[in-house]
Each structure stands twice: as structure tokens, then as C-alpha cells.
């Protein structure tokens, strides 16, 4: 059994676990009682989608999906900072 077959066997077990985690994060993001709960759930989901996209880059043997992962990680950090600044200071600022 070479490395490629063992990688695809690994993906059969790993991909459902990640998809189940995304569904549970989405439930918390939809029913979160306060706005910080929603932002925290979206934040966790974005970081984990970045990791999942890096796994998909190996699965589809393409180097282009990785650049999306970097952008997604930086975007989630930006969302946190902007929401925190808007909640504290009532304005975002430029």
C-alpha cells in the first residue's frame, strides 16, 4: 500500500469529522444568544475552514487552495478586531 492510497483511506475517516464539527459550529452561530457568541462561532468556523482547505489542497493536488486559507485566517482576525472595537467605542474608525 503506497502513500497515496493510505492518504485517501485517511480522508475517508477525517472528512466526516470535520464536516460534523462545521455543522455544530453553524448551529451555535445561528442560535447564539448574544452577538459575541455569534462572532466567536464564526471565528472558530473560519479558522477550521482554513485548516480544512489546506487538507483539500492535498486531496485535489492543487496549490491554489492554500492562498484562500491564508486570506480566510486573516479575515477572521479582522472580524474579531472590528466587532470588538465597534462594541467598545460605538464606531469602527478608519
Amino acid at each position, binding site marked *: 500500500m503506497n*502513500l497515496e492510497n493510505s492518504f485517501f483511506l485517511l480522508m475517508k475517516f477525517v472528512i466526516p469529522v470535520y464536516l460534523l464539527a462545521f455543522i455544530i459550529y453553524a448551529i451555535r452561530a445561528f442560535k447564539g444568544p*448574544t452577538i459575541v457568541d455569534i462572532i466567536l462561532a464564526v471565528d472558530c468556523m473560519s479558522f477550521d475552514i482554513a485548516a480544512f482547505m489546506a487538507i483539500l489542497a492535498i486531496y485535489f493536488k492543487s496549490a491554489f487552495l492554500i492562498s484562500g486559507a491564508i486570506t480566510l485566517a486573516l479575515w477572521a482576525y479582522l472580524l*474579531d478586531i472590528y466587532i470588538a472595537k465597534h462594541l467598545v467605542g460605538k464606531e469602527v474608525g478608519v
Partner: protein
Amino acid sequence: MSEILFYLGALMIIIGGICDLFGALGLLKFPNFYIRLHAATVGTIGGAVVPLFGVGFLALGADFLPHKYAIAGASFVTGIIVLLAAPAGSHALAYAAHKTKIVKWEPKCDHLEVEE
């Protein structure tokens, strides 16, 4: 040598999937925002940084990938970015939630509370 890197990366991806599932369950079941922050740390550091480094090791050890050095380097860079950005973002959210008092909770003691 490449088999060792490949199986180390596969083990880190499996650990990341388990941490991801447990972080999501904690984020769903815990009672208020400040306790959910703990599960969010499990979900980001254990569920995103560990599999990103695992993807890097796995891509370095894989012999079937056409652009393996590009994928490995970019996933290491993404892992370092998430490792720096996730704690700073959750700390900013916790600061904003405590400052604006939008979370309903009954603390035993709150050292950050300011007297009106």
C-alpha cells in the same frame, strides 16, 4: 524519512479532527460566553493550528504531490498566522463583552468590575 514525515502529519490531522469535534461540542453545550471561550481555544489551537502543521509535514513527506513545497510552506505560514491571531482575537472579544456587559452571568467574584 518521507514515510516518517507522512505518518507524523497524518497523526496530527487525526488529532486536529478530534480536537475540532470536541471544541464544537463544547461551544454548543457550555452555559455562557466566558466558558464557551475555553472551548473556542480548543477549537482554534487544537483544531486549526495542529492540522495545518500536520498538512505541512504530510505534504513534505508525500511523493505523489506535484507542488509539495508550495503547499507545505504556505500551510506552515497559515499555521503561524492562526497561532498569533486566534488568541488576540478572542481576547479582544472577551474585553469587549466584559466592557459592554451584554453577557448574563452570575460570577462568584469579578476582579475587573469597576465601581460606578
